[in-house]
């Protein structure tokens, strides 16, 4: 069994800590004061669209960028800025950054040579890690003689063989095709469990993030918007940005009416709707709000009569997706998406009943990026 610097630690120890970290490039603020604590042995994903500051954050943890202010601690110690082989983090780059003039074995051995590991030990450790990643048959090949997936494994092996405390991955699957990406997601998760060290992962792919992570950190414009498990974030998005980015959501504009605790009502183009508020948001009457309803919570058919809300709508599109069908409904000027299990047989143009339970509706802060016209 391989021994990693992190593996003997207590699980709830903090491995990476960011305190009010700010990074600017000229007049652009890439990271705008974030605090983050990553527990030992966790798979944490920084998720967000390009330009949200996720890669800059990762590069700062890796020491490749220096924060303008704030502190970064890895293993409880401030990051050394002068490099050297004893640094606690290793990075897997988006384009792999394998050394083109070196074989797989030479690439993987590079970090160990820098650590001045004895030759005989380098040989066995390279052999072990290459075997773990299923690359033994390719050990004498050059990077360009290998497929993208294989190069990806070499990049992982090259970083892991040095036994880092934290492995940083910058969209490592971005260059692979869909099928290979799915396969490598599975492999990565397995690998992380086997080596037991902390992974900090960056992606813009919400499905990948949900698939891999213990904790997802959603970022927007250099700030952390929400963090938690995939289920927490999916079920209780703090705002419309998160609701829209993680999974899909029907977002409807509305005006707040009243509420008690997390139960509230607001006026929507479809009439008065009940829903739940996130913990951090308590609007007052007359405030502009957004409703978020997941497509799978929009139910179709006669049995919707007993739900908290129901109405008639016209089917405009029906698409069969294999496991489910995606329906598009028009209700006045409002368009709604609904996912129903299995094959849905009614044709487009038909008038159907739809509805939902109030507990599946989220009432969120108004956000101009997602506003739909109010009827």
């Amino acid at each position, binding site marked *: 069994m391989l021994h990693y610097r992190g593996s003997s630690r207590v699980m709830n120890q903090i491995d990476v800590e960011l305190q009010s970290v700010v990074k600017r490039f000229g007049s652009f603020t890439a990271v705008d004061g974030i605090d983050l604590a990553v527990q030992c042995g966790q798979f944490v994903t920084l998720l967000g669209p390009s330009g949200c500051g996720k890669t800059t954050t990762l590069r700062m943890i890796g020491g490749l960028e220096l924060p303008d202010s704030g502190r970064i601690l890895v293993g409880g110690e401030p990051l050394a800025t002068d490099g*050297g082989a004893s640094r606690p983090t290793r990075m897997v780059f988006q384009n792999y950054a394998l050394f083109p003039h070196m074989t797989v074995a030479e690439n993987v051995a590079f970090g160990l040579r820098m650590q001045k590991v004895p030759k005989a030990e380098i040989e066995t450790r390279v052999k072990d890690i290459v075997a773990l990643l299923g690359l033994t048959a390719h050990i004498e090949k*050059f990077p360009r003689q290998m497929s993208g997936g294989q190069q990806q494994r070499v990049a992982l092996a090259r970083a892991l063989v040095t036994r880092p405390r934290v492995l940083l991955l910058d969209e490592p699957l971005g260059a692979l095709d869909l099928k290979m990406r799915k396969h490598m997601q599975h492999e990565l998760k397995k690998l992380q469990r086997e080596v037991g060290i902390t992974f900090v992962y960056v992606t813009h792919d919400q499905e990948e993030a949900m698939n891999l992570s213990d904790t997802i950190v959603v970022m927007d414009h250099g700030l952390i918007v929400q963090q938690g498990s995939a289920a927490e974030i999916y079920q209780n998005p703090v705002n419309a940005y998160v609701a829209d980015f993680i999974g899909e959501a029907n977002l409807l504009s509305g005006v707040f009416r009243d509420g008690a605790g997390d139960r509230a009502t607001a006026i929507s183009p479809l009439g008065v709707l009940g829903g739940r508020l996130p913990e951090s948001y308590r609007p007052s009457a007359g405030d502009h709000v957004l409703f978020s309803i997941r497509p799978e919570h929009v139910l179709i058919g006669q049995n919707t009569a007993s739900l908290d809300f129901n109405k008639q709508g016209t089917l405009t599109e029906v698409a069969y997706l294999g496991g489910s069908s995606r329906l598009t409904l028009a209700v006045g000027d409002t368009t709604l998406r609904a996912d129903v299990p299995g094959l849905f047989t009614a044709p487009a143009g038909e008038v159907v009943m739809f509805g939902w339970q109030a507990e599946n509706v989220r009432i969120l802060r108004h956000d101009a990026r997602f506003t739909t016209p109010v009827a």
Partner: protein
Amino acid sequence: MRRDNVKIVLGIWTGLVLLFLFAPLIIVAIFSFNTSTISRFPLSGYTLSWYAKLFGDGMLREALWNSLIIAFATVVVSCSLGILAAVGIHRHGGRFTSGLRAFSLTPMMVPRLVIGIALLTFYNLIQIDLSLFTVIAGHIVMTMPYVILIALARLVGFEKTLEEAAWDLGASTFTIFREIMVPFLKPAIIAAGLMSFTLSFDEVVVTFFTTGRENTLPMMIWSKLRFGITPEVNAIATITVLISGLFAVIAELTLRRAQEKP
């Protein structure tokens, strides 16, 4: 049918261009084997005596030897300094990159005659005796812009993440240069080396102004030309072409192998 016609026309055209380029060299080589001292067809007979005469000529041997010393020294110094300069400009140039680039390439645009006169004036000013060293220094000034140009062109394709990856794995700046940058630059280093060798080996003007008593091969040719184009001159020229050509072939083969195996 039309395609075939086009092919034939293109073939003939290519042949003419090659003939235009190489005919003078071939003619020089042919006359170097002529028994007559007058360069005129038909040849009066074949002989190797001009080559034998050349190799028997002590001054000529010394000139060849000087030319080789100058060329090798120029290659070594010009390449090491030029490559380092290119890496420096590429990596740390910042907003001065294009300015530094243009500035370091200027000697290439300046006429050799001006470089020669400037060097001579400079040597006089700092009171250095003219020798092989002053010639070598002059040739370095002349060839380094080419080295920088070739290296900078190659560096454009360098992925910065390779450096970052090496740094991330614990490599020092020097190790990154030696183990990542130099292998990447290898084709450029070879090309730059051969380029400066050829430039230096052929140079007359800069050598003329900067040399003391020592003579180089191209200078010999010049001085011998005072007595007209003799078969002896043709023989020297043929040898010069062969040496330059040999280096060009080596360069091509090395570059090709570098491309096949990174």
